[in-house]
């Protein structure tokens, strides 16, 4: 048992780390001609975009489910179960991002491009683990 104050502190650290992840780049892929695709929580930025490529914008708002999870984590200070829902939901959402990252890395390597993980993804991963540890500890304290 680590005590409720420590558990709440872990959740708070998880929230801050995840919130920081929402403003940092998550990952990027580089291709010939200096084309770089930078994926962030609130959209994808294409540096040196060739005139007609791509015709559409693949720019999902990955930050939206993470923001909902963050709101639940914050609510967890008052409603114990909300923290567990938020942390587990964030873990699930991060699982989809992990699947996408592995896929994008494979595509980049296949096309002899570069792939780089951004600080945003590191903060998201660490924030998720820390928040989950705090949420589980809060549950144990409440039991």
């Amino acid at each position: 048992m680590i005590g409720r104050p420590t558990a709440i502190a872990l959740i708070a650290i998880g929230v801050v780390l995840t919130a920081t992840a929402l403003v940092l780049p998550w990952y990027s892929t580089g291709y010939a001609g200096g084309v770089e695709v930078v994926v962030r929580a609130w959209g994808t930025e294409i540096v040196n975009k060739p005139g007609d490529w791509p015709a559409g914008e693949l720019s999902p708002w990955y930050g939206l489910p993470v923001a909902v999870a963050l709101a639940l984590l914050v609510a967890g200070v008052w409603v114990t179960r909300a923290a567990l829902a938020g942390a587990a939901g964030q873990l699930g959402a991060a699982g989809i991002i992990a699947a996408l990252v592995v896929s994008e890395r494979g595509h980049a390597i296949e096309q002899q491009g570069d792939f780089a993980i951004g600080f945003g993804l590191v903060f998201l991963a660490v924030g998720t683990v820390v928040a989950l540890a705090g949420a589980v500890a809060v549950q144990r304290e409440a039991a």
Partner: protein
Amino acid sequence: MRKIAGTVLFVLAAAAAVGATFLPFSELLIRLAPGQPQTAYVTTGWSTHFGGTKDEHGPLFAIPVVLAAVAVLAGVRWRKVAYAGAAALAGVTGMLFVYLLNAISFHEEGNIAIDPALEAGFGNGIWVLITAVVLAFGAVVVHPDD
């Protein structure tokens, strides 16, 4: 009685989630040249195909879905694990929905000049997955406390 109902719902939710991974999450039907048959671009939890060609690096969305389904199934014994599993399944589904919504829009915008009659949309898999989330939370509510 509540325990039996809860157990049945947990099993149904987990089965629906795993089953959803084998169904299409999104589909694009496009004619690459006038007069040619439509080619299907289909994403499931386990693969992405464009016609007969498999994308060797297609995202394996099924892995987080199956892990969350296992946690939901654990609810038969540990209700709190099932609650976390249901929340994880909701997180998986929410993030997948955000990705697919944008990918479908991208398919439409990017290919409208090639085939104005193209069809792009969600597949049955995403709806089954959303149903699994509802069933999982329903099971948590119905199942008695540990």
